């Protein structure tokens, strides 16, 4: 199991957050150490000058240590302040006013720095109550004696200013981290926007609103867009080739099948004739499915509806020339929809064919524009159907009257094609007396 988030945004944000966190922690530690050195340096400077001042006023009188008068800083005068100095010459010692008793000093190891420079060296001391003291120590020679002078400061003198500085610093670093995270979020969102844009374009290609994805992409995506377009073009070509081949296969089968059909009718073998009809029905069904298996590129609305319907009605008038069918077409002259012309012709052809086939004498085609869709109503004055019959006739191969020419696949093909455009077919009783077929096609 991987701990990485599934989304790219998540991964980029998690990676960025971890790096920002590490950077802020490292910065805090580094700045803290620098501050500590600075504060300790300040304290050491003060302690060293105290040691030097004490050393300058020390003398040995009668074998005992003596201190001539000197100005003392108030911290070294306040009892138990932690600010102490002590000059020791075993067993005698002198110490500051603030120190009630001697302090214990861990005798530092030999330090060559003191030997070379004569400067004080760090020393650790413990107060009367066992508190840790920050100390400096220097050994001086007074009157032939080696005197070690220790000056100390309380740990609080280091910790308090350090903490005050660090608390402000941490607040600033926190604010900086938050700002960086915000910036990162913004950058990730802006940075990934072309990907979301590309995804939307691919969706448009799938839905048939675009022919290809735009090639004008950021450098990192332009290669992907190019490959996608190649894939889309290949897919389209293969689909067309497959459709053409299935159509050719169907057409090449239909001609000998027609001959077979005529021959079986002649020799009066109804069972053979039924088999031939079943083969014909299967060819029709699967060819219809191959045609409506995917949507063609449509793009912007460009199909002028009224001329298409008028031409279809004209064709059906010719096909039904033996019958007197009156028709009305109620459709806005300027109505344009986004639909492939052959898909629209197939839907309208099948519905109008049914309307003409079953009409007693009247057909009405009405097209209405709704807020989100175009609605096509094809009504006739023919046979009334029960809801059960309506549900039955949209099934592939189902026919209510086997004596009327047809194959029973027309409505099933319309259902498939309408679904391809996100639309649907519904059947209802018509006010003309017969059946009304309604196709609803959404605008997009």
């Amino acid at each position: 199991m991987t701990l990485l988030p599934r989304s790219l945004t998540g991964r980029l944000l998690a990676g960025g957050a971890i790096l920002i966190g590490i950077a802020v922690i490292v910065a805090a530690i580094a700045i803290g150490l620098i501050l500590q050195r600075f504060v300790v340096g300040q304290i050491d400077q003060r302690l060293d000058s105290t040691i030097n001042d004490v050393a300058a006023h020390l003398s040995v009188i009668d074998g005992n240590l003596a201190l001539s008068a000197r100005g003392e800083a108030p911290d070294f005068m306040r009892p138990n302040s932690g600010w102490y100095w002590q000059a020791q010459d075993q067993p005698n010692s002198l110490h500051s006013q603030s120190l009630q008793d001697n302090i214990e000093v861990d005798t530092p190891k030999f330090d060559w720095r003191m030997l070379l420079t004569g400067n004080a060296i760090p020393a650790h001391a413990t107060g009367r109550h066992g508190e840790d003291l920050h100390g400096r120590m220097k050994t001086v020679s007074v009157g032939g004696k080696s005197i070690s002078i220790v000056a100390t400061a309380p740990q609080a003198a280091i910790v308090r200013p350090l903490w005050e500085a660090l608390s402000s610093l941490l607040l600033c670093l926190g604010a900086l981290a938050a700002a960086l995270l915000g910036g990162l979020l913004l950058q990730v969102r802006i940075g990934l926007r072309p990907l979301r844009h590309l995804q939307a374009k691919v969706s448009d290609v799938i839905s048939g609103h675009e022919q290809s994805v735009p090639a004008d992409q950021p450098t990192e995506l332009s290669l992907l867009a190019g490959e996608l377009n190649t894939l889309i073009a290949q897919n389209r070509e293969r689909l067309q080739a497959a459709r053409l081949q299935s159509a050719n296969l169907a057409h090449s089968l239909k001609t000998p099948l027609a001959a077979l059909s005529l021959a079986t009718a002649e020799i009066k073998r109804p069972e053979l004739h039924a088999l031939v009809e079943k083969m014909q029905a299967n060819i029709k069904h699967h060819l219809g499915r191959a045609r409506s298996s995917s949507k063609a590129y449509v793009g912007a609305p460009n199909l002028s509806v009224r001329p298409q319907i008028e031409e279809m009605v004209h064709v059906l008038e010719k096909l039904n020339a033996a019958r007197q069918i009156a028709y009305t077409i109620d459709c806005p002259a300027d109505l344009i929809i986004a639909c492939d012309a052959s898909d629209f012709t197939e839907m309208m052809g099948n519905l109008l064919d049914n309307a003409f086939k079953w009409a007693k004498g009247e057909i009405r085609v009405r097209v209405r524009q709704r807020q989100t869709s175009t609605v096509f109503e094809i009504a006739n004055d023919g046979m009334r159907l029960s809801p059960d019959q309506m549900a039955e006739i949209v099934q592939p191969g189902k026919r209510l009257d086997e004596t009327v020419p047809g194959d029973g696949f027309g409505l099933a093909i319309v259902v498939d094609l309408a679904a391809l455009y996100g639309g649907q077919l519904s059947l209802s009783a018509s006010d003309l007396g017969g059946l009304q077929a309604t196709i609803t096609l959404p605008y997009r």
Partner: protein
Amino acid sequence: MRVLLVENDETLGKEISARLRQENFVVDVSRNGEDGQHLGATERYDAAVLDLGLPKVDGISVLKNWRADGRTLPVLILTARDSWTDKVEGFRAGADDYLTKPFKIEELIVRLRALVRRANGHAASIVSCGPLSFDTQTGAFELESMPLRLTALEWRVLSCLIYRKGRTVERLDLMERVYDGEGNVDSNSVEVIIGRLRRKIGPGMIETERGLGYRLVEKPQ
């Protein structure tokens, strides 16, 4: 009635032409678009049955060329292409009817007869001329409401005359619409058939226009 059948499938072509001949049609068969187009452009036909997927010249081009040449013969497209887009394209090219394969031969015959009737300007399916009536859907003749028995040749001549009732039909025209392409045709035999018809339907109904042809009239003058 003389029909041009342009169908490249030999078996189907033979089946269709045999059945059409049984129904008294005179049938010329062409198995490619080039020959079909030539025949349709040069010969006289009452109708043509045209396949679309043809060798050499496709059916739509054949039809467009006929229409461009001013040939008005009624054309029924008989094809395996059953999409509505194909049908629309067929009618745009100038087709008068469209039938998809596989089909019932009876439907083809009924549609062909209806095409020929409409092309001759008859809206109703029964064409009458005096006591004679012709059911264009079944092909049956009646004289004074009694069935009239005719041989194939007699039927061809009389149907040709009744479609053009009141108009003179040229002898050559009549011969072309009555005899199949094969075999020698003697123009005198048309006279013989006319003579037999006059005996069956009454002497005054078929008039002879000397040097021109024959005319079917309602009332003998």
